[in-house]
Structure formats: C-alpha cells, structure tokens
C-alpha cells in the first residue's frame, strides 16, 4: 500500500463509492442501448465518469483521469447530439468502463494502475473526432479472447493531463481548452503494452480473471481483475442497525448486573422463591437479549443482493451481443438481504449461471422465430426471502433441457453407464449436468464451458450450505433455483451421539429420522441398506465413518441428503437440535470435522462436515459388515 501513503482510507472510500457508481453507469449503458437519445441517461453517465475523474485526480491516478476524461468528453458530445451512438461507439464506451473497473481492482490491491492500453485511447480519440474506431479495437471487441492487442500506431496526440492540470491549477484563470494543448508524454512508455490482454469487453473483469494474468512487469498490475479477487474489508452499515447493537449490548450489561446481584444473594444463602423467580426472569431475559443481539449483529452484515445483481445485465448484454442473440435480463428482489460474505461468494456461481442461460439456455433469434417465440429472449434473475432461507432463481424462456439428450451425453462422456442412464427419470437426468466433466455443448465455446462447470457451481453453493435445483421444460425454458441460509454465522444442527460422544451434523442435510429395525436391513452387493419408501439407501454408521470401533448397535438412523447422494447415518441416540456457532479448530484439522462448538453443559461438540467425512480415506468409509448391525 506504499503508493498511497496516508491515503489508504480515502482510497478505500473512493473505491467503494466509485465501484457502485460504475455499476450504476454500466446498467445505464445497457438502458442506453434501448433509449439512445435519452438525455437524462446521457447526463447521468456523463456525471458518473466526471465524478470518478474528480476523485481519481485527488488520488493522483493519472491513467484513470485520462481515460475518464475522454469518456466524459464522448458523452458530452453524445448529449449535445454532436455524435451518434452506434454499436461501435458503444463497444468503445463499454471497453472504457471495463478498463476503469480493472483500474479499481489494481487500486484495491494498493497498486498504481498502468497506463491505459493505447488502442483503447486511440479508439476513443477516433470516436471523439467523428471517425469510426480503428479496426484493431473493433475486431478486439467482436472476438472473445485474442491474446495480443496491436499497439496503436501513434501516441503523440495524447495530451498529458497531469501537466495540463498543473498548469491550470497554478493559473486557474488561463482557461486553456484542454484539447488544444500540445502534448508530449513525459512518462515512459509501458514496457509490454502489446502483450497485455486488455480486452475487457469480451472477458469482463469480474468474470474471467484467470486468462488476464499473462502479462508481466509494469503492466502486470493493470491486468489484475476487480471485484472477484479479494474480498472487500469494509462494509457500509445503516447507523440504525448499529444503534440497535449498541442498545442491546447495553441491555445485556444491565441484565448481567442483575445476575451478579442475584448470585451474591444466593451465595449468602438467600434462596427463597422470590430470589429464584428473579433469577429465572433474569436468565430468560438474557436469553431473549442474546438472541436479539445475535440477530442485530447478523443484520449489520446483511447487504442487499442488488449490489451483486446489478453487474449482470451488462454481462448478459455483452455476451448476447457476441453470440448474436437478443437477450433481456430482468432483475427483481434486489433489495433482498444476504450475509456479506455470502454475497461475495455467490458472484462466481451466479456469473456462471447467467452466462449459461445466455449461451446455452436461450436460442438464437432465428431459432426463436422459427419456434414461434418472441425474437428477444427473457432471462429473469430474482431473489426473495422464503422463511429462513433466501431463494435465488434464474429463469430463461429458452429451449429447455432434453432429458434424453442429457442421458446420451452423460453416457458418451463415460460419466455413467447406459444401464444406469436408462434407470434415471427425467428429473434425475437434469441432475446429470452437475457431474464433473459434463458439458452439453459439443464444442466448448469461448463463452461458457471454460474450465468451470456446473459441478463447481454446485460445490460453491454447497459450501454456503445452500442447495441448487433445476426445473426444465423442453421448448419452454429452464429455471435454476438456489436456496441459501440467511447467514453462515449461526448453523442449525442436529446433535447425535455415537461412541458415547456427541456430534453435530448440519440440519440442512437431514431429511428425516428413522429408527433402525434390524429386520429391515438388507444386504445389497455386500453393503447394508435399508429401503425407505421404495428408495434403497446405503447404511453407514457414524462410528464406521470416523474409523472407530462401535460401542453398541445403532438404534437410530438419520436420513442424510446431500446433492451428491443420500444415505442413512446410523447413530446410537439423539441429543436434540440446536443453533450453534462454529469455532474453527486451531492448527489441527481432522478429516470430516468442520469445527467445534460448546453444548449447553459446557462440553465440546465436534461439528461434522459430512461431505468431507464421506470422502475420508482413513476411516472405512462407513462400510460395515451387515452382521455388525444385526443382533443375531
């Protein structure tokens, strides 16, 4: 952070505010494509760049000042109708926006961004002077990822804004029109301009950081992406919420005083009914207050999901344009609130789903017309709170998924055998896309299907204790639903006992609880199973999964369901359900253990990570001999 000595805090403020501003600009740009003459929109966008420029000037971020200034000039011409907004002009604008966002990313890491790629600056100049942008820029925006951007022929027509500003500041009344100033670049040329992939339009910074790291040296910093890399360390909180926390902690303090007094009384032997009733009251009040405090603290971490959603219309628009599709992404429920860390971790999966919907979900305009649909396809991204969960849905009106095609594909790829494939019903077929290595398109397009697949999306959602489901009707569209807990801070668990020790399993995975009737255990290919409502489920003992010797025959089974598989976890007995706060274990990380928590009586309870436990190699994988489970 050395480049901004003493200004880090200011820089953080600037970045947070400017990022929001830029996202707003991005969305207004998408709007602008529909209403290109809208003066209010043009004015707003102009002001956006203007404001960012102003802030960047104070932070001495010269490249950003230069870039914003030119873009701002462009909008000045647009709003004065001196310039027509053609798709080519729009591409240049969008590229400039993406570059500014990249610079935010660099600044976020405490580094000074490198100079803007000269091709972009020349393209802006060309547009400003009424010419079309030169071919390099146009070609660059049309194709997804050309690694090499040709260097611009000349850089000599660039005014040096730094010098200009100095001149203006020291003699403010001089008022030289900036464009007329002769200019020489005082700074050195960047070393490897041509080798840098400054191709933000095809690979918007937030979506594909991986392929933007090829550059070296001075320009390296400029290729680091914004948003997705690194989490924001600051948070904006409504002061009302903070006051609530303060209030509650004050109340808790008072209740603690009450308890201390009562303790003294009781220690002095004063334990009549009144004292004990007061104790009861104080404790139940404390219970209430602590619950409220947890809620209030949780609320301070809640952020509207709109901050995430607002990036996507632009993403969908860029992608649709590349693919020659007409797509409208409609958002709703942006005000729905979610834990801050979850919002950040949701970005990658959602980006993937939006890209998928545009690339695979909806048809090309021609196909849609042939199918008698509206030429423009509609993708809806919605969020709402349902009970104690947040439901996020992405719905398209595209071609839907064909169960047979999915089945065939999975077999072709060798992911499952034909027999297993034929046994799957339509709903189960849809689940096939979550298998690692599954991609429905024969040709992996440059757009989606690059590296990460739906299996990664699902893994990421599961890490957030969430679930993902698919509904699809061939010809009508696909809906992907993600269900997430409100927060990760408090985890509802089921506490069970095995080997005389309590363990907590996440309640989200528990489908039901059954008693294990030894008669009902059947052996299928050497493994114990139980049939529950026509479903053959493998039986695994918790002791076995842990690699411990069982101390008694398990009496109960917990029907666990993860996206991967369902099985019955055999345990000795139950303790109950509880809301716990997971404390990570320091220094040690036993396989299958997510962390520890304290039970009501003060004893330590291990919280199990079932997925991890199931893949553990140390134990016996929970496989036990049927004979061990049945009393002979």
């Amino acid at each position: 952070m050395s480049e901004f000595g003493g200004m880090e805090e200011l820089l953080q403020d600037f970045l947070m505010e400017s990022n929001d501003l830029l996202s707003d600009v991005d969305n207004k740009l998408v709007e602008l494509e529909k209403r290109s003459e809208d003066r209010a929109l043009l004015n707003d966008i102009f002001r956006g760049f203007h404001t960012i420029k102003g802030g960047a000037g104070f932070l001495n971020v010269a490249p950003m000042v230069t870039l914003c200034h030119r873009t701002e000039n462009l909008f000045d011409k647009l709003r004065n109708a001196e310039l027509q907004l053609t798709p080519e002009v729009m591409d240049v604008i969008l590229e400039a926006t993406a570059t500014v966002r990249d610079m935010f990313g660099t600044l976020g890491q405490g580094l000074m961004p490198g100079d803007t790629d000269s091709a972009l600056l020349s393209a802006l100049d060309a547009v400003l002077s009424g010419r079309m942008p030169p071919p390099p820029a146009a070609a660059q925006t049309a194709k997804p990822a050309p690694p090499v951007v040709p260097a611009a022929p000349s850089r000599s027509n660039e005014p040096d804004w730094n010098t200009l500003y100095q001149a203006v500041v020291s003699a403010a009344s001089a008022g030289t029109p900036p464009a007329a100033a002769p200019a020489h670049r005082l700074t050195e040329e960047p070393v490897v301009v041509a080798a840098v992939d400054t191709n933000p339009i095809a690979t918007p910074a937030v979506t594909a950081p991986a392929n933007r790291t090829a550059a070296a040296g001075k320009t390296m910093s400029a290729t680091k992406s914004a948003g997705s890399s690194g989490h924001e360390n600051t948070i904006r909180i409504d002061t009302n919420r903070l006051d609530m926390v303060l209030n509650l902690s004050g109340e808790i303090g008072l209740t603690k005083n009450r308890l201390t007094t009562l303790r003294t009384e009781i220690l002095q032997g004063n334990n009549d009914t009144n004292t004990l009733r007061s104790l009861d009251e104080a404790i139940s009040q404390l219970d209430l207050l602590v619950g409220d405090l947890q809620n209030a603290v949780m609320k301070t971490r809640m952020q509207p999901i709109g901050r995430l959603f607002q990036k996507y219309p632009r993403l969908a628009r860029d992608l649709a344009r590349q693919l020659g599709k007409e797509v409208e992404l409609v958002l709703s429920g942006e005000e729905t609130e979610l834990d801050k860390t979850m919002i950040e971790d949701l970005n990658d999966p959602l980006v993937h789903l939006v890209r998928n919907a545009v690339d695979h979900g909806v048809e090309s305009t021609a196909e849609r017309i042939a199918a008698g649909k509206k030429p423009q396809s509609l993708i809806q991204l919605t969020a709402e709170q349902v009970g104690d969960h947040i439901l996020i849905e992405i719905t398209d009106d595209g071609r839907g998924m064909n169960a047979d095609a999915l089945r065939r594909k999975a077999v072709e790829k060798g992911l499952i055998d034909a027999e297993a494939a034929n046994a799957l019903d339509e709903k189960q077929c849809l689940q096939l896309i979550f298998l690692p290595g599954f991609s429905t398109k024969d040709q992996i397009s440059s757009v989606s299907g690059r590296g990460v697949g739906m299996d990664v999306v699902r893994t990421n959602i599961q890490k957030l204790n969430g679930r993902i489901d698919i509904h699809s009707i061939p010809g009508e569209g696909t809906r992907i639903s993600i269900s997430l807990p409100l927060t990760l801070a408090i985890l509802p668990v089921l506490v069970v006992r095995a080997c005389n020790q309590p363990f907590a399993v996440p309640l989200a995975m528990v489908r039901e609880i059954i008693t294990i009737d030894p008669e009902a255990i059947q052996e299928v290919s050497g493994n114990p199973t139980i049939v529950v409502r026509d479903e053959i489920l493998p039986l695994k003992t918790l002791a076995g999964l842990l690699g411990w010797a069982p101390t008694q025959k398990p009496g109960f089974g917990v029907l666990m369901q993860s996206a991967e598989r369902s099985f019955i976890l055999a345990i000795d007995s139950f303790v109950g359900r509880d809301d716990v706060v997971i404390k990570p274990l320091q220094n040690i990380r036993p396989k299958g253990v997510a962390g520890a928590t304290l039970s009501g009586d003060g004893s330590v309870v291990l919280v199990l990570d079932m997925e991890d436990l199931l893949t553990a190699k140390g134990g016996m994988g929970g496989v036990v001999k049927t004979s061990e489970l049945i009393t002979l």
Partner: protein
Amino acid sequence: MTDKNLRFLVVDDFSTMRRIVRNLLKELGFTNVDEAEDGQVALHKLKTQHFDFIVSDWNMPNMTGIELLKAVRADQQLKPLPFLMITAEAKRENIIEAAMAGASGYIVKPFTAATLEEKLNKIFQAIHK
C-alpha cells in the same frame, strides 16, 4: 488572522470528494464543517442553519452548483455568503459563467491544501477590503 471557527458547508454528490474537501479544510485549521449532497439539500441547510462559507461542486444531480449559486445570490439572507466553486473543468466559458453568477472564487480539481488556502485567502481579502 482568519477566524478558524468559520462554519463551512461542503456541497458535493460524491461523499469521497466531500471527505477530501473536509480533510483539506481541516488541514488549514477549519474544523467547523457540514456537508450536503446536492444543491437542494444545501439550500435547505443554508436556510435553516447558520453558515459562513459555501464550498460547492459544480456538477451534481437535482440541483447543480451553478443553480445553487444563483439561488443563494437571489436570496436576501444568503446573498452575502462567500461561495467557492469547485469543478473539474478549466474552460473559459465555465469560469465566466461562474463569475457572472456571483461566485467568489473558482478552484479546479484536483487541488492541494495550499491551493485551497490561497483561494480562500483571496476571498477573505476581498471581503475585508
């Protein structure tokens, strides 16, 4: 020499910028500063509270700096208030427009505390003459 208790109103729609200006004023010893996020809010504050000095950005939504300036000069009560206009533009026509509307001074972004002090001092001198 100047009264460090002068009450400033900093008007800008970008909160980072308000903070920058506030910090610069603080550097110069002026700690009595309030903020407004656009011309309308500023005008409301000016009419309901006492201020000695206005530092305003030009380009803002709802009510721009120049509109605020005109409104201030048109108000019998607020009329004499010193008004420093901040802008990113150094175009001659802008400066003339601000001067004609009655700006006491004009400062171009980005500026340092020293530049700000110089501008403020010029305005103070003009008042005390």
